[in-house]
């Protein structure tokens, strides 16, 4: 509770930054082209358990480096890939040579990899091919006389060639590492910039590496300065955020993006041959469209709508099992058209400007240092919710289910006078104010039901209300809050503008009863205070309908980790 306001303001800042970053990244990674009509084929991935730091002034502890690598490897280890870990000796050679070189450019790195890793990878792929070949054999056996055998090209040879050509390697790197320790904040923040180098291993007579893409992401983490391992904890938090982002960005690389033909269409429900084997999850969005050859001879993917996964088939044993998705924006679709994955975090950011009633019954609050009087007010207040809607559908197996964590920043036009014991002037002349700040923090559950592009949602939230006045005391900013614990329920009507954005309206009811519960925050320190006045205390409540506008966006990345924020919130409550 103590850090709620700071957390919310940081959240706003980071979210905006995250959204801008996501939009830029989304635009750079949006083109999609695959062989028309083909299904996604599994790719074999080799990874180097070594971290490149492009600036050798950066000192990252060995344990933190390993944590970072583990987080990245866990993030990139997704079902659509087969993994070929490189042997320790090779890794050691590579690391040593990397260490000797210090700062390396991308081209130097490529040369180093080619010299140390490529020959070994080719050998490994031969070993690993056994497993993959077995899978392919199963499929061939299953289809034997049924499916296409491109005999003229040598079916199995082609498949093996495909496997050989579908070998990729990634290397994580950190390009920037900053620690900020603001004086007025008891937390330190570690911000890192980094990403992944992705290479394609081209086997054959002249094995070589071809750079596919370099993914960039940035993330930050905070921890209390006082703690002995504060920097390490903050770095690890940032590392896990970066891993989360890099997974989405990797899924969005066109060669790794899931795509499949539609197997059947029944009204707004479509079936398609992907499932647990490829790691798809409930509610994941896919574009639907078809490949079009333009007059200039180029082939592009023409989107004609989008769907969200409604049933995930277990196709690990039986690849004929079909998953299902429901159409949100439906075009003129037919069996055989292509679905293309639109990778997202599964966390929506919702902005909801809203109006509600506040009731303040005049009264006086007096603590050791402050005396506040409020005038009567019974009228409208305005605020804006900023929510993180974390999709929990894969966990609870109910589609469009969200854990909502968010806050409201608002203002209520209530007159107040604030006296403090800071100096004689403040004792005699109060700071008068025509409005007080409002902050809400809440968490709850939301469910959404789509009917075409329209959706209705209902949410139930449990939260805290803070009515805030600010002052200075002993040259320090002071925040005096009246607190209340309450609930909110909302019902909304949305329209899916596109695959990432919904816009709509909502109405609801909030009940935050009056509580004689006051806190004063001196700088970073927040304390509960007694109300010593013998007079009637101000009674601040909001038991009223609320209504507003709803806008949500599904970003591909965030620069903070909501799970880490939740953890911080839980620690706070403890």
């Amino acid at each position, binding site marked *: 509770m103590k850090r709620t306001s700071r957390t919310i303001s940081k959240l706003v800042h980071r979210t905006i930054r995250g959204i801008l970053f996501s939009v830029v990244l989304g635009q750079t990674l949006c083109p999609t082209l695959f*062989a*028309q*009509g*083909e*299904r996604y084929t599994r790719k074999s991935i080799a990874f180097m358990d070594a971290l490149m730091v492009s600036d050798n002034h950066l000192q990252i502890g060995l344990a933190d480096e390993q944590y970072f690598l583990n987080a990245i490897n866990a993030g990139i280890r997704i079902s659509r890939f087969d993994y070929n870990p490189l042997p320790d000796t090779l890794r050691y050679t590579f690391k040593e040579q990397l260490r000797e070189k210090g700062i390396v450019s991308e081209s130097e790195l490529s040369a180093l990899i080619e010299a140390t890793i490529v020959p070994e990878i080719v050998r490994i792929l*031969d*070993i*690993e*091919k*056994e*497993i993959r*070949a*077995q899978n392919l*054999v199963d499929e*061939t*056996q299953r289809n*034997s*006389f*049924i*499916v*296409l*055998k*491109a*005999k*003229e090209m*040598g*079916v*199995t*040879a082609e498949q*093996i060639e495909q496997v050989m050509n579908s070998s990729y390697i990634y290397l994580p790197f950190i390009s920037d590492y900053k620690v900020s320790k603001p004086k007025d904040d008891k937390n330190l923040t570690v911000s890192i910039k980094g990403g992944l180098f992705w290479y394609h291993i081209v086997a054959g007579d002249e094995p070589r590496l071809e750079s596919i893409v370099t993914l960039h992401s940035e993330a930050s983490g905070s921890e209390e300065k006082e703690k002995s391992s504060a920097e390490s904890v903050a770095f690890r938090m940032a590392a896990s955020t970066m891993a989360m982002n890099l997974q989405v960005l990797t899924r969005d690389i066109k060669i790794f993006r899931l795509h499949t*033909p539609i*197997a059947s269409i029944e009204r707004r429900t479509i079936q398609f*041959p992907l499932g647990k084997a490829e790691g798809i999850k409930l509610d994941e969005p896919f574009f639907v469209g*078809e*490949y*079009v*050859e*333009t*007059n200039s001879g180029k*082939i592009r993917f*023409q989107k004609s709508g989008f769907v969200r996964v409604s049933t995930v088939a277990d196709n690990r044993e039986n690849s004929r099992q079909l998953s299902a998705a429901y159409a949100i924006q439906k075009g*003129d*679709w*037919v*069996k*055989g*058209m*292509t679905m293309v994955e639109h990778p997202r975090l599964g966390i929506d950011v919702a902005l909801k400007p809203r109006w509600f009633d506040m009731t303040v019954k005049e009264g006086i609050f007096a603590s050791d240092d402050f005396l506040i009087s409020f005038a009567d007010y019974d009228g409208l207040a305005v605020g804006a919710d900023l929510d993180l809607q974390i999709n929990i559908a894969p966990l609870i197996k109910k589609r469009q289910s969200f854990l909502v964590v968010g806050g409201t920043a608002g203002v209520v036009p209530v007159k107040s006078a604030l006296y403090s014991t800071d100096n004689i002037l403040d004792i005699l002349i109060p700071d008068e104010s025509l409005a007080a700040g409002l902050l809400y923090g809440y968490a709850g559950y939301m469910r959404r039901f789509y009917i075409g592009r329209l959706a209705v949602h209902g949410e139930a939230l449990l939260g805290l209300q803070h009515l805030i006045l600010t002052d200075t005391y002993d040259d320090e900013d002071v925040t005096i809050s009246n607190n209340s614990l309450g609930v909110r329920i909302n019902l909304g009507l949305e329209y899916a503008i596109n695959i990432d954005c919904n816009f709509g309206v909502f109405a609801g009811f909030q009940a935050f009863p009056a509580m004689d519960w006051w806190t004063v925050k001196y700088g970073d320190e927040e304390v509960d205070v007694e109300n010593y006045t013998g007079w009637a205390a101000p009674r601040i409540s909001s038991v009223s309908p609320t209504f507003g506008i709803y806008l949500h966006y599904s970003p591909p990345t965030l620069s903070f980790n909501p799970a880490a924020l939740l953890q911080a919130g839980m620690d706070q409550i403890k």
Partner: protein
Amino acid sequence: MKKTLIVTLIALNIFSVAFAKSDKPKAKSNLPQSHEAVILESTSPTEVMVRATGYSGTGGKAAEMDKQANVDARKAVIWLILLGGSDPLLQTDAEKSEFAKIQEEYFTTANLKQFVVWEADYYDSRLKIDGGKKLKIEKSFKINKSLLQQDLIKKGVLAENAQVAGALGLPTIMVIPETSGKPSAIELLQTNPNLKKGAEVIESYLTARKFEVIVPEQQQVLQELTSAQYALQGSNEDYSYLLALSIGSDIYIAYNVTIESRKLGSTTVKKGVVACRAYETTTGRLLGTETGYSPERTAPDAVLIEEAMHDAADKVLSRITAYWKEDARQGVQYKVILNVSDNYTKSDAEEIIFAFTDAIKKTAKTFKENVVADYTYDVLLWCDPAVYQSSSDLYRFFKQNYKGAGVLTRVSLSRKLILLNIAEE
């Protein structure tokens, strides 16, 4: 005035008729737009797997375009089997022109459906072309080629194999593994299970298509039985008869089988490769060669051989059928080897050969000389099967019509090979 009116009316009538004709909408052709198809493999003696491209019309709803493209792909598949590729069902001009009469009704969707045994759930590719106005799809189909053939026979486009051969009969085919001499082909069949399997697959194709098949091992058993019978009766063996038995087929298919293997990790994967060559027995003429491959996988050799052989055998048999049809048009083929006794002088022998050639000219529709030596005359001749139903008929004719010196006697008469001798009385 009346005249003018009549002329005007006639002119108007002519114009209206002409206009009506030009305005008449053209009937939409049922023939495939696409002729892009490829046979992927022959999966069984009766079925083939084909991948074909189909095009939709211009514009329309997605479902409509999809349907049109699917139908077109299906038509392209049938077109390929009937008229495309190296071994189409319709091979002669007569067959093609006969089919042309019914092709519009033949390429209707309802008719083609019966021949499609299976079609892929997913497209091999799907692309909008012409700036998105037309749809192009690629899809795999399995077609019952045998059913298609039977249907065309029923419709009178194709003649039944037996009918094609007419009095000639279907060719008798022997399947033997390639050998360089030792061990013999029969020994190989008895000792090498892969070669045995290969022979079985080809024989299965042959019997499915109602060819007469001579099994070499059985032929040998027959020879041995014959020898034994003669021996029991105390007679001498008739070596010429035994020789004739050994040349009992019109065509023989020689094949070889190779199983290639390599290690993938710790697993050994194998690939079957077979090559089939069809020869005309009497002349040694190569009728067709095909190589078949199995996919590379961990499977018993027999499975790989079967897969590889399916592919090769189907094409070789198509070549044989084509050859036989062509040959049947010329008549029944015989190889005649005449040996003139060396008691004659060279010039006498030459006269004898000339006299014999005169006899051939009387009987053969056409003939081709292979060797004309001092005392040997080797010739291929095609005779009317209605007149000469067997080699003995032909021999009788030669016997009766040979007007040269010496006496014409037979050394051996087999199905297609006639060995003759002319010596002094």
